[in-house]
């Protein structure tokens, strides 16, 4: 059976009509009988989807398919997730991915381990939907939701005379349900705060980048997440898990815009060494460096800007012109402390992402540093800006990009931004567009002196040290962590809270794990001002199912 008829069968099984038409949010919630208000819906990211499948069904279940593009807002994808919808085509993709997962879960080698009943029948389907639906939705299923799965099971079994096929459709319907594809943050007893299950989800997705496990769900059910002590115990448990690295990787991938490495291309004439393998390695190098500082060594977060420890594989070693003595994996090396090395700032990922295909770009680098470490967004240049001087790399008199940028910034309309952006990027000019060291450009020595906020420095090392001491760097990380977890840009109402977090972060010697504990155990972390949810898409046959997926939970009760 192809997937489209399968989709029709699932839809015909009234899954969505039942689930959404009589929309309720788990009767079993602690706040039962109170009207439920969905404060935010955040579409799962690709990694969250993949991690959730791995955690619920095992890492050997593969997730095959293309995901809908994500959107960065206010510097983070995590914030953009709250504004994402699913297109009709995207829903078909989710459906196909879900069906592929279900097919694997119910193949002969896995179903015995995962399903828990020897032969598929309605009771088995109900039990399965209840157990796994709770994991996937982050809350117990309502009776209506379970009944609709039983109906689907019966319809599918009758049609195909195959109970396992019916079970597979039950799981497909769970995986295609908006309750799984979108994290629903539901209001608790106190207005503007989350209910217990939403708290559990927020903790789990922030720290593990995945759905809550059974212990966290149980803690939520018992109301333990409503107390500081209970939250502390769970946060400590989550942070102690190996899955915490996965969560930290997701966070820093978002903050450091590492998704951009997938789109980096370089002019093969100018940089023949650069290829997809280098790009993949460069991305991993950043994450390994960050994990080493903030997780393995639990060191000062700001050291990611100055560390001379680096991780290299055979590909990156060739870029750095370093010997690689490993056996195919990653190798930790210490670069000379007196060299011009500055942690992530002098790694291939940052230097190649924020550069042109054939040449460096101090402006792009400066702007990116402002966004990542100072939370300082840079406006796009006006449409009619004249880049001719900057782009004239063969200019006989303006041989270096610094000279060309200075000439460009002589234009008053350009100077406003460039004066603020360029100094950080100019300090990195001794690294070319793929991060290789250089000291000259067109035969001219490269000047890497710069000044930020009245502090003068030289080169990448000087830049790293300057940023390391810049108080805005720690404040920016606090802002990013809070936004990443809550899925929203901080408002002025959050100012005092963020300041308190920052003070604790500084007092705790800039340890990220400690910061996570501070933020994720605070009451403020579990607040959620109502946000406007996306409107349902236009009606039409192709969007019927998708529109169900997107329908906001107005009038839902619990």
């Amino acid at each position, binding site marked *: 059976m192809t997937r489209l008829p399968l989709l029709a069968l699932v839809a015909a099984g009234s899954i969505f009509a039942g689930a959404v038409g009589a929309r309720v949010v788990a009767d079993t919630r602690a706040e039962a009988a109170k009207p439920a208000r969905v404060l935010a819906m955040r579409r799962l990211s690709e990694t969250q989807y993949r991690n959730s499948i791995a955690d619920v069904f095992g890492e050997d279940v593969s997730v095959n398919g293309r995901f809908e593009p994500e959107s960065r807002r206010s510097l983070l994808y995590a914030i953009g997730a709250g504004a994402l919808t699913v297109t009709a085509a995207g829903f078909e993709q989710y459906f196909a991915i879900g069906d592929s997962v279900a097919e694997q879960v119910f193949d002969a080698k896995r179903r015995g381990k995962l399903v828990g009943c020897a032969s598929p029948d309605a009771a088995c389907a109900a039990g399965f939907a209840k157990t796994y639906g709770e994991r996937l939705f982050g809350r117990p299923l309502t009776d209506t939701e379970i009944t609709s799965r039983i109906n689907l099971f019966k319809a599918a079994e009758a049609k195909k005379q195959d109970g396992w096929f019916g079970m597979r459709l039950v799981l497909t319907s769970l995986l295609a349900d908006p309750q799984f594809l979108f994290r629903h943050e539901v209001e608790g007893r106190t207005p503007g705060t989350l209910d217990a299950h939403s708290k559990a989800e927020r903790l789990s997705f922030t720290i593990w980048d995945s759905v809550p496990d059974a212990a966290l769900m149980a803690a939520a059910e018992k109301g333990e997440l409503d107390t500081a002590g209970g939250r502390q115990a769970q946060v400590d448990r989550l942070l102690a898990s190996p899955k915490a690295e996965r969560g930290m990787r997701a966070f820093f991938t978002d903050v450091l815009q590492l998704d951009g490495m997938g789109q980096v291309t*370089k002019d*093969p*004439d100018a*940089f*023949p*060494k*650069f*290829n997809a*393998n280098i790009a993949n390695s460069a991305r991993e190098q950043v994450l390994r460096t960050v994990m080493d500082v903030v997780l393995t060594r639990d060191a000062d977060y700001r050291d990611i800007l100055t560390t001379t420890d680096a991780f290299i594989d*055979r*590909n990156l*070693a*060739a*870029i750095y*012109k*370093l*010997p*690689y*003595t*490993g*056996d195919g*994996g*990653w*190798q*930790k*090396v*210490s*670069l*000379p402390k007196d*060299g011009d090395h500055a942690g992530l700032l002098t790694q291939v990922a940052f230097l190649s992402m924020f550069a042109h295909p054939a040449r460096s770009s101090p402006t792009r680098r400066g702007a990116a540093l402002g966004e990542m470490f100072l939370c300082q967004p840079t406006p796009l240049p006006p449409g009619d800006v004249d880049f001719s001087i900057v782009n004239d790399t063969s200019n006989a008199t303006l041989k270096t990009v610094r000279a060309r940028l200075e000439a460009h910034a002589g234009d008053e309309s350009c100077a406003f931004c460039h004066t603020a952006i360029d100094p950080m990027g100019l300090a990195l000019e001794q690294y070319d567009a793929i991060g290789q060291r250089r000291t000259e450009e067109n035969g001219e020595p490269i000047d890497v002196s710069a000044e930020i906020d009245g502090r003068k420095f030289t080169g990448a090392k000087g830049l790293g040290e300057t940023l390391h001491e810049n108080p805005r760097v720690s404040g920016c990380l606090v802002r990013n962590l809070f936004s990443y977890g809550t899925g929203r840009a901080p408002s002025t109402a959050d100012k005092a809270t963020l300041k308190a977090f920052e003070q604790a972060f500084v007092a705790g010697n800039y340890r990220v794990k400690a910061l996570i504990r501070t933020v994720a155990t605070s009451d403020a972390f579990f607040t959620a001002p109502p946000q406007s949810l996306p409107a349902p898409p236009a009606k039409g046959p192709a969007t019927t199912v998708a529109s169900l997926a997107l329908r906001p939970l107005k009038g839902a009760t619990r």
Partner: protein
Amino acid sequence: MRHARLTLMLVAATSLTTPTVAGAEPWHRAYVVDWFEHAFYFGGGKDGADKPGTDCAKGSNPEINYRKIMVTSYRTDEETRVLMDPNNRDKIRFLGIRGPNREDVYREPESVPDPGILPMTGTIAEGLDLDDDPRTGFTAPDGRRGIDNAFYKELGCWYRYRAQAREAFSSKYENDGMRDGGYTMLVIVSGEESPENDRNATVGFYVSKDKMVKDAKGAIAADYSFRIDPDPGSSSVHKVTITDGLIESAGSQRLRLHAPNRTGGGRRSAVATDELDLERGKLRLRMKPDGTLSGVLGGYRDTYTNYMTASNAIIELVTRIEAPAVWYALKRGADYGKDPKTGRNTKISMAFTLDALPAFVVAPGGQLAQAALPYLNEQVAAK
């Protein structure tokens, strides 16, 4: 992940690839060979390797007329026509069966008379003065005299190798195989004085199981690291002197390195080998300012080993020479290694050109090349 923490001094690493100030300090430079081919001086123009040139007055050897040579007392013209039908893929099995008594001429080349090859007519050849007699042999393109390259003298018009540098049919085929991961050959030049002038330097040839990496343009990327294969086969260390950056052999020495062919993996059969074993070998290489290494090396190679690289139907079909002609040419040109029983020479002088890119070489055990050189050279010498 490998947990071993290495302290790598960038300053030291940089010194591997940039000239150092002359001094009595041990030094080395490591390379990976990115092109290795038979040294066939090409005297033709740019209009194709088939055309006549100063090397081959009648051009390259023409296509084989199988319809003619396959007709024997036991095979009619019609049978030959059927056998040679382009759609008959089975013919490969029978092409060698054309001796007068059904001998396989690939195994028994002297079962048929010498089919001959178009004669090489030039006086210039790439190579080295292997016999230390400038009166014998060719003149090199740079004017050096006494160039011994009898392989080229006898087979210089063979389409297999006759073309501009890096353009010959077999050169491309064999080097593509190497560059696609068939095998990897490493070179370490080391000394005690300086890379510019050193009276007591060595050139070591090693093999690696680490594949070369291609860059975005399809060329081999420089600066990659390679681990030396702990099995010291196809490797040798050659004593040299260096004068103004020119590396030359300190006398004749046996050279063992990987042969230019398509695949690696050790001996392919009892006689066909991946090893290039050159007796009384010499080399002449130059470390260039751009960090690369180029030059020529040569020596005397066993004629039968050479013949085994040509004695099959595929080589015949695609390189336009009858295998027995290669055998007779090798036998005729053999200029070293007299067999006391027959009084005939058993080895033939030949030469190869080599280009190599800067690389990092890691010895078994994870040591970097400089530290590992004594161990490496001891291993090679002991084999």
